[in-house]
């Protein structure tokens, strides 16, 4: 089952994280190993397996990159190293400059500068997330039920239409940007840990 099916929600990039969290709590109430402490070993194993699935799905759905990847799979968008579109040279240039600035800030032990760089990339990340939301929404069939996060019966379900090559390329390019930003932010946070 894909993570959307495990959470019984319609596949979408624009998820209501509050509702997702509530669903996670509901599923955990039923499946958490604490509920099966007195159960026979086999039943304990079964429940553990399901609880692991739920937490794995939760981890994927909460993280925009992994959510996008899961959604690509649902929509039949092929992702592989060979067919991934090349990164925009402008972006590569920008990231190179930013990383240099980050390295300088690290050497100068300039915490404020590291934070400032992280804030600016976080803003860029937000733009890309908005863009991805828009693009995915244009591809996904309209929701059968109004209200974010509410699930369509038998969800994970609608047949994807064929995604055009242009759409695919643009989507994956945005996703690629997100990965660059993530790596940058991870690095910035490691530097903050180290400098503090």
């Amino acid at each position, binding site marked *: 089952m894909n993570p959307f099916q495990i959470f019984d929600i319609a596949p979408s990039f624009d998820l209501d994280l509050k509702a997702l969290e*509530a669903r996670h709590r509901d599923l955990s*109430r*039923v499946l958490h190993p604490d509920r099966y402490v007195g159960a026979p070993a*086999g039943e304990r194993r079964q429940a553990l397996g399901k609880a692991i699935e739920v937490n794995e799905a939760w981890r994927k759905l909460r993280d925009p990159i992994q959510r996008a990847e899961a959604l690509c799979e649902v929509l039949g968008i092929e992702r592989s190293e060979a067919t991934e579109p090349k990164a925009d040279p402008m972006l590569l240039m920008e990231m190179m400059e930013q990383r240099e600035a980050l390295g300088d800030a690290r050497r100068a032990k300039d915490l404020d500068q590291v934070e400032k760089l992280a804030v600016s990339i976080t803003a860029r990340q937000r733009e890309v997330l908005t863009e991805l939301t828009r693009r995915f929404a244009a591809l996904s069939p309209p929701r059968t039920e109004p209200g974010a996060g*509410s699930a369509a019966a038998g969800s994970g379900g609608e047949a994807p239409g064929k995604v055009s090559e242009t759409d695919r390329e643009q989507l994956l390019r945005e996703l690629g940007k997100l990965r660059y930003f993530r790596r940058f932010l991870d690095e910035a946070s490691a530097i903050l840990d180290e400098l503090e």
Partner: protein
Amino acid sequence: MLLDIFDPKAPPKAIGIDLGTTNSVVAHVRDGRPVALVNCDGTALLPSVVHYGPRGNVVVGRNAASYATRDPERTIISVKRFMGRAADDPQTKTLGAYRFKAPESEAEGRVVRFDLGSDGSRTPVEVSAEILRSLKQSAVEQLNAVGGAVITVPAYFDDAQRQATKDAGKLAGLEVLRLLNEPTAAALAYGLEKQQNGVFAVFDLGGGTFDVTILRLEDGIFQVMSTGGDSALGGDDMDRALAHELLPAMGFELDPEGNTTAPLEIVSLALETARKAKHALTERDEVLLELPRKGGESTEHRVTRAHFEQLIDPLLVRTGRSCRRALRDASLEAHEVDGVILVGGSTRVPRVKQFVAEVFHKEPLGDIDPDLVVAYGAAVQADLLANASDEVLLLDVLPLSLGIETMGGGVDKILPRNTTIPVGARSTFTTFADNQTGFEVHVVQGERELAEDCRSLARFTLKGIPPMPAGMARLEVEFHVDADGLLEVHAQELTTGIEQTVEVKPSYGLTDEQVEDMLLDALDHGEEDLEARRLADARVEGQRILHATQKALDSDVDLLSDAERAKVQQAVDDLEQAIGSAKKASSIQLAIDSLEDVTHDWAGRRMDRAIRAATLGKQVGDVEKRVEKARGIEAHLEESAAKAREQARAQEQARGGVAVSLEEPKG
């Protein structure tokens, strides 16, 4: 006072144990409230000290502590600092009255061992087991029978340290229901008290460990958002900082690494004096210490609170760093925290309280005794688990990232820190040389970039890969972390269709056989006693399973076909008979296994029903919900048939090269 009337048929009671660096506590829930049980010292706090006397005589607690300065070599204090650590761990180099023994054989592994001179050596697991055994004994005396136990561990304990704690529990003859993180235990004790939703920070500074945990309490669910800390930072380090000044005053020099020529008795005395000074300084502004000097005479040494605070400042700075990182990991600002809870004896130090207030911008709560609150929480959790209560649930996280060493010595993170557990993850690797038949997997835990800087958990080689060109073999490594935070790793080679599974033996833990052997050694009559105990355990287990099965029959019998139901009934009867008459644990186990066999599919259906009830209950369409809930076996059989149809159709489409549709058949 009400007297407990002895009832030989009373069910065994679940207990909670705080196995602390300085003190340990056992508690249980009585009339809905956690209470600490009195230990062999007649108090709630049992000093975590074990003394190995001549002729195999072992004492624990206050009596053992009285030997600390007289017989330091055979008196183990703060054993928790060494749990799950290797013989060459930096912890063994810090100032302390210990003598360590180098591992003598491959079988002794890399585990650190305390040298007891003519009485051989002991591992931290064995020493901890003595403390647990003593607590269990006290509980048995007061409760008549003890069921399972919840043992607490610092949230920041890594896999090896957790495994060591669980092994100690097993070795003490306890059924370990769960390893519970100490801050989460404290939050549980507070949360039930206050019954309020919100975000809480738990600041837990114990004798040897520091944890900070940020969690959200919402409608009975304690969701840990992030955790951080240092499993080698605590009140002991404050004592050591002061002892580093006392030793020179006593005429013994220290080099910058903390090495000293002072005999163990003097080191022990300096640490003990420092600890007393620390306690006194919580009330007073200065203390005058009388110290014996090398050569005979004594000297006076003045310590002011201001000076002591200056000494411990570097330690507090480290805790502050962990707090800010935990907040960052939880995506929260300090002012968004609704309450701060203080846990651990070291939070009694006035400067620590003040520091916590500065970090979180609010006065911390400390109304439950910081020395008992963790044991209270453990007792509550033990009670919840034993009674299968569904009012409260703790959702904890993995404290440190798990990963695999890559070719260049880096780390490929497979599960990041602060992931909600239990959880699993997979990663695939490939061979890098032609005809490579083995693949080494090195599992590490930690946040550092290089594998050598992380904790090494396990190393194994996947063998028997058929010769293939480089990059062709596909190796899948699967991580499972259970609700105790314990890791299991499986590795498989996928391309050839031959699936190999490797069970990983942790570098520091014990195998089940080793635990068994040690248990045998500890029992007077060896084999005989062990079999009697196994039989008793099997009876309890059998009863529990009968009880669980009956409960399931009461609620979900409609999910069984008639034929299945007859099989279940037969297996139940067989198990009942085995429990009544079996002379060997294995016959009961056999009956348990057959009952499990015939209930396996049914258990899956019951889980699906519970999931449906939990999720559909929250959606629009109440009529539909009731219909779904009332569905019986027919609906489930129909559903699995539909699933099979869908699978077949999908396969067919995949073969035809058509995009696979995920649409479910309308039924």
